[in-house]
Structures are given as C-alpha cells and as structure tokens.
C-alpha cells in the first residue's frame, strides 16, 4: 500500500495513471449529472410551496457541499506536501483551489438567485451565507498568495501554511457566525429548503452531489497533469516523452 502510494507520487507514474483515469471519471460524472438533471428537473414534482424555484437546489446544494469538501481536500494535500515534502501533493493543492473557488462562487450565485424568489432579496446576512462568503475569501487569499510568489518551492510551502491555518479557522468561523446570528432574533428564513424533502427530490440530489464529486476528480486530475508538466518541464522523462 505505502509503496504503491509512493509509486503514485512519482510524477511520471502519476502522469500516466491520471491520463488513463481521467476519461472514466469524466464520463461517469457526465452520466450521473445528466441523469440527476433529468430526475430533478423533469421527474420530480414541483414543490408545493416553492413551485419550480426549488429546483435550483440541484445546482445549489451540491456546489455548496463541494465548496467545503474541496477546501478540506486542498488543506490535507497541502499538509501532506509540507510534511512529507511531496511535490505532487502541492500540485494537487494548487490545482484544487481555483476549482473550489468557482464552486463556492456557484453556490453563492445560485443561492442568491434562489433567495430572490424565496426571501424577496438577493442576500441576507444569514450565518450559512456569511460563512460561505468568507470561505470564498479564504480561497481568494490562498490563490492571491500563491500568485504573488514566483518561486515555485516557496509558493508551495507558503500557501500550504496558509491553507492549513485556514482549515483550522473554518469551523471557528462557522460556529462564530452561527452564534452571532442566532443571538439576534431569527432575522430571516434561516432554515433552508423545503420542509421534508421527498425521495423523488432527494434521489436526484444525491446523484447530483455524487456526480459533482466525480466531476471534481476528473477536473482535478487534468489540472494536476498540467501542473506536473509545468513543474517537471526540464526533467528527463518529459524530454524523452517529447522525443517519443
């Protein structure tokens, strides 16, 4: 297992394996998402109080979920890279960040779009909304720091430190915001979504979340391959590859 892990961690090896895996991930993700969309937008009945507006959930909840999931993935990868000096892990963290940021953004936008019909406003300073927004800032901070250091090793390590500090902070942020918010009277619709979600709605949602996850892995693999190429550009195995 451990040896396998190390084997995978060697750039050329990873490059090859990732190349093989990507299409599989890609297609399964596509299938799942399409199916979920069909189930969600066509099969599932309109919500008895929200009408069709609720269908945004099929984009919104999964993206929101991904936004959190990816940040953790990123931090873990960064930690591995920092502790075991594994270049590949840094590459993973680096490639994950923009994807995570865009999912966060998607969650915000879809949420806002949903908020308009539901709460009659684009934005409320609700706990969950706020912490999601701050999460976006954390992503931005990470990307900005990485972008402003041109030396790769340094950029890797420094941004790794930041990612780790950030992940410690995520729960703190989360609870502080909830606490802050609930101290005031329930200002707005704090509890989200329709009352009890029916299976006909739930199943597509779960499929969607799964689809998004696999899609993320597909994207991640391709991006990491790119990173690896960029980083190893003057390593032997690429030159050989180029000649071949």
């Amino acid at each position, binding site marked *: 297992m451990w040896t396998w892990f190390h084997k995978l961690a060697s750039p050329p090896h990873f490059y090859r394996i990732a190349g093989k895996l990507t299409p599989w991930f890609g297609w399964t993700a596509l299938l799942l998402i399409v199916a979920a969309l069909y189930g969600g937008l066509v099969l599932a009945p309109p919500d008895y109080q929200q009408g069709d507006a609720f269908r945004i959930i099929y984009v919104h909840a999964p993206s929101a979920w991904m936004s959190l999931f990816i940040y953790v993935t990123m931090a873990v990868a960064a930690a591995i890279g920092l502790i075991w000096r594994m270049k590949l892990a840094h590459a993973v963290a680096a490639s994950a960040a923009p994807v995570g940021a865009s999912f966060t953004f998607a969650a915000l936008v879809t949420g806002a779009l949903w908020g308009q019909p539901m709460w009659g406003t684009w934005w409320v300073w609700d706990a969950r909304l706020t912490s999601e927004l*701050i999460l976006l800032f954390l992503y931005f901070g990470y990307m*900005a720091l990485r972008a402003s250091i041109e030396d790769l090793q340094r950029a890797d390590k420094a941004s790794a430190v930041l990612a780790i500090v950030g992940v410690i902070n995520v729960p703190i942020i989360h609870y502080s915001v909830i606490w802050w918010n609930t101290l005031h009277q329930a200002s707005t619709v704090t509890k989200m979504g329709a009352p009890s979600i029916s299976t006909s709605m739930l199943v597509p949602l779960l499929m969607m979340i799964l689809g998004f996850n696999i899609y993320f892995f597909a994207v991640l693999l391709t991006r990491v391959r790119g990173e690896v190429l960029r980083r190893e550009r003057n390593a032997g195995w690429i030159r050989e590859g180029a000649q071949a």
Partner: protein
Amino acid sequence: MLTTAPAAIRPTSSLRAGRLLFVRDVLLAMRRWEHVADPLVFFVMVTTLFPLALSPQLSQLRDVAPGVLWVAALLSSLLAADSLLKSDSQDGTLEQYVLSGQPLTLLLLAKTAAHWILTGLPLVLISPLVAIALGAPTGALTTIMVGLALGTLTLSFLGAIGAALTIGLRRGSLLLSLLVMPLAMPLLIFGSRSAELAIAGESAAGPLYLLASLLVLAITLAPLTAAAAVRIGLD
C-alpha cells in the same frame, strides 16, 4: 558599438513620456494581477465586515449602507495611494523622473491616472453588487456608481499629494492616511449624502455636482502640488 559615434537622436516629447509612464505602470501592475485585485477585495471585505459587526437586520443595514460604502471606498483608496510613489522613491526611479528633463507635473498626472484605472475603477465597477448586499434598491445603483467614480478619482489625486509628501518616510502609509483624510472629509460627506438620497429614492444631483467640482479642482491643483512635494522630498 560601445565606442561608435552616436546617430542623431529623437528626444521624447512630454506627452509621449507621460504615455510611457502610464503604460509602464499598468504593465507593472499586471505583472502581479492580484495587486490590482487587492484594493477591490479590501473594499469588498470592509463592506462585509460591517454587517458582521452589526446586527444583521437589513433595515438597519440600509440606513448605514451609504456610510459603509463610502468609508470603505475612502479607506481602500487611501491604502492604495500608499503604493503610488513608494516603490519609485525607494529604488531611486523618482530621482530619475526629476532628472529626465520631462515636466514632473505631467509624469505625476500620468501616474495618478494609471493608478486610478488600476485601483479606483474596479472598485466602482463592483460597487453595485456590494450596494445590493447592503440592501440598496436597484434604482439607486447608477447614482452610487457615478458618485463613487467621481469620489475615488478625486481621492487618487489627493492620495498623490499625500504620497509625495511622505516620500522617503518608511511606514509612510498610515501617516499618509492622516494627511489625506482631512482633505477627504468633504468627499465623504457629499458622497454618502448622494448615496443616501439615491437609496431614499430622491434626486442626488446636488451632491454629485459638488463632487464633480471637487474633482476638477483636484485635477488642476493636485499634480502641481505633488510635483513640488516630490522635489522637496528628494533632497
């Protein structure tokens, strides 16, 4: 080539010099895109901090929205202003401007213009989003944007004066804020007033005109003053 006689040379016109400086500064900023984003993000952050520090009823937010918007704009312009001349004065480029034989006033005008494009404009463009998040009605957005555009541009020019005055002081940034803030008070008052009127759905023509006239004043006087300050700051 080191020893060959020089061909006839074509001296650079002042305008061309100004353009060169402008282009270089934009280029310099683009080299580190995140820096262009910085004042922007700072602006967004401050405007996010407030609701967090206040109790989050939208009604109350709407009352303070103009203040928050304008204070945030003021602060991020001031911070950005710090970087207007700093690197140039640190690495001796500023001396080279003075010795370049080009009118310093014009060079500084170009620098300030570039600076606003890079720091002020993005802020203006994002302001509608922020305003909505603070509960401003869609009707008020254009007025708010116009107001901020006039205000931030004026602030950039004020910032130029401050930056010139604080040349060579390490950690000038905060001192700079101190110098500029008093000058910026009128902006803040008229600006937030205009936003207030807009949000209340009334005409904000009055304050906007005042802002515009302040801008004209700044454009005409600031570069001259800054140039003088730079000359003083160098020796």
